């Protein structure tokens, strides 16, 4: 028995035989005439069209249709014609094909963001065209029996070629929680593990168990292991389904369960998932990819839609958190050596552009128009002076509940003074973890350090929570940490009063919290604080909570 860890992106436990998918990369010369190259492109386009029609999922269908259009693109045909000018058989057409794509590839890459994501499509079309010419194209994957699909990476064309009725689970070496594989798996409700580096050791015919909630793949699992994982999964599902209504511990201690949202449609899913409000509304979407600042009226319109979707509930809005991994073109104009430590969040008020004031004005107006219980907080606050500055500006616009994100070590260390300036705090555990551990949370090589279970992070949270309790300030958590049921119990034990998470995670956390009392939460929080690593904290807390 050997186990491989990855990121669980779609829950469920299954056991099955591995079907390994490998991509064809042609590593020898491929001769051809210009006509043959164009015919190959046409064949690739036709194949992608066919796969698009057969695709079960709308996002996959759209990506495949877009790829088919690229393969038939007049500009691409022209670029190939300019490189293969003579009507002869060229000894190797691969360089001409790659070169024809390279100009478009570079243009899209330099645009960044959504546009740069298309680069993979271009590479895939080039690979497929070359494979088509060399006669080595990978045929449709034929699954004769239900199988666990294992691959280095799965492209939309790959998943579209799979007969999903026979697909028990997906395991890929690459990718993250928002990868195509993750979206497809969740859409179909089949277990999936991504970012599983060691998956390449698995071969067709191996028998594996996949636990898509816990991100675990076990080769040759014994019966006891399978039973343990299946029982745990069944219990988690039953628990999630059993409890509804506001969040409570088993002794009726209330824990506000809120949802994170970034758009009007997120707010609608939050309301549908029974959230007691929005604990983090991210306002970046309206600003990202803009050359100029959205007007106050435009902002009022968006905030009004969000507040209306959550009518009658509390809504916590974070002011624009631009900078670092979310640059806004008209604000983040100076290149920074170290953007995560640069002028981001509330620090942008140093530029004196008044963007935050206009945002506060728009928020206040939308809240008045819709009679919303509006709470507003500023991101990236370090000092009591910054907290006081934000509070004064927000109160000037009549905002009743003003707060700060506690996401830097400085804010946690000075929580007694920072929280004294405002009405509430919210722990941004994603950034707090990266800053406490001094480890980039986007760097997969450091994932062992960027775990919010780390006792160093929990001690920072504990310090903030103790001070919040003394000052009688509500303190929430908005970050991935809140969505982990065991960690949620630890956070409540530390003194956190509300948890905000993706709407999809609410039912499980609500169900779990209903099984523990306050004394147990305090007990496990002390155990976690005393641990010396994230793994140890997780294991020791789990031993108590699942006993």
């Amino acid at each position: 028995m050997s186990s491989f860890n990855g990121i669980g992106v779609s829950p469920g436990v299954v056991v099955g035989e591995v079907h390994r998918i490998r991509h064809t990369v042609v590593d020898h010369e491929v001769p051809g005439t210009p006509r043959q190259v164009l015919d190959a492109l046409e064949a690739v386009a036709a194949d992608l069209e066919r796969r698009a029609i057969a695709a079960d999922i709308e996002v996959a269908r759209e990506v495949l249709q877009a790829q088919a259009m690229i393969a038939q693109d007049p500009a691409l045909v022209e670029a190939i014609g300019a490189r293969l000018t003579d009507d002869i058989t060229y000894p190797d057409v691969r360089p001409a094909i790659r070169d024809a794509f390279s100009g478009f590839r570079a243009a899209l890459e330099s645009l960044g963001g959504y546009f740069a994501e298309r680069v993979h499509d271009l590479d895939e079309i080039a690979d497929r065209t070359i494979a088509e010419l060399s006669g080595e194209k990978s045929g449709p994957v034929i699954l004769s029996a239900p199988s666990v699909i294992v691959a280095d990476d799965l492209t939309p064309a790959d998943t579209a070629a799979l007969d999903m009725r026979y697909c028990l689970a997906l395991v890929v070496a690459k990718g993250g929680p928002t990868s195509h594989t993750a979206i497809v798996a969740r859409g179909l409700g089949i277990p999936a593990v991504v970012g599983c580096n060691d998956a390449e050791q698995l071969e067709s015919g191996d028998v594996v168990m996949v636990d898509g909630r816990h991100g675990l793949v076990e080769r040759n699992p014994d019966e006891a292991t399978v039973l343990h994982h299946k029982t745990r999964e069944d219990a988690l599902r039953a628990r999630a389904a059993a409890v509804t209504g506001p969040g409570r511990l088993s002794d009726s201690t209330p824990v506000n369960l809120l949802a994170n949202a970034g758009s009007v449609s997120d707010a609608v899913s939050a309301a549908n998932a029974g959230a007691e409000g929005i604990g983090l509304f991210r306002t970046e979407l309206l600003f990202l990819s803009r050359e100029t600042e959205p007007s106050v009226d435009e902002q009022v319109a968006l905030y009004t839609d969000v507040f209306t979707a959550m009518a009658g509930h509390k809504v916590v809005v974070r002011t624009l958190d631009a900078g670092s991994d979310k640059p806004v073109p008209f604000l983040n104009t100076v290149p920074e050596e170290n953007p995560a430590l640069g002028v981001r969040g509330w620090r942008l008020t140093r530029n004196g552009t008044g963007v935050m004031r206009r945002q506060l004005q728009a928020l206040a107006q939308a809240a008045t128009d819709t009679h919303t219980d509006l709470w507003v907080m500023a991101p990236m606050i370090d000092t009591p002076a910054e907290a006081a500055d934000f509070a004064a500006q927000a109160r000037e616009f009549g905002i009743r509940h003003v707060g700060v994100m506690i996401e830097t070590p400085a804010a946690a260390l000075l929580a007694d003074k920072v929280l004294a300036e405002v009405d509430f705090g919210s722990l941004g555990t994603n950034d707090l973890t990266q800053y406490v551990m001094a480890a980039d949370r986007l760097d997969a090589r450091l994932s062992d350090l960027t775990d919010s279970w780390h006792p160093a992070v929990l001690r920072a949270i504990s310090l903030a929570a103790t001070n919040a309790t003394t000052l009688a300030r509500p303190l929430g958590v908005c970050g991935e940490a809140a969505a982990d049921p065991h960690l949620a119990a630890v956070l409540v034990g530390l003194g956190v009063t509300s948890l905000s998470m993706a709407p999809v995670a609410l039912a499980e956390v609500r169900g779990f919290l209903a099984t523990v009392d306050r004394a147990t939460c305090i007990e496990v929080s002390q155990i976690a604080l005393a641990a010396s690593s994230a793994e140890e904290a997780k294991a020791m807390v789990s031993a108590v909570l699942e006993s």
Partner: protein
Amino acid sequence: MPSQVVTVASSVGLHARPASLLVKAAASSGLSCTIGRVGDKAVNAASMLMVLALGVKFGEELEITVADGENADSVLGTLADIVGTNHDEDNPHA
């Protein structure tokens, strides 16, 4: 040659669904259609790669031109509608 200036309404810009719709409509019109920033170089609107490479963002103004021909005005109307409509309200990248 009829032409019209339109503001991009989709929040991801001229990308993904809006770009696909535009390119498809331009390619099936049978007329030569171009698109570009006002006063800037225009590209073939039937080329997905050229349209994507413009890197057009939400709120930008674009000029669409359709070559003279039968239905040129209605083709122009269709293309302008596509660019001027928000096609990604359920944007998953939120």
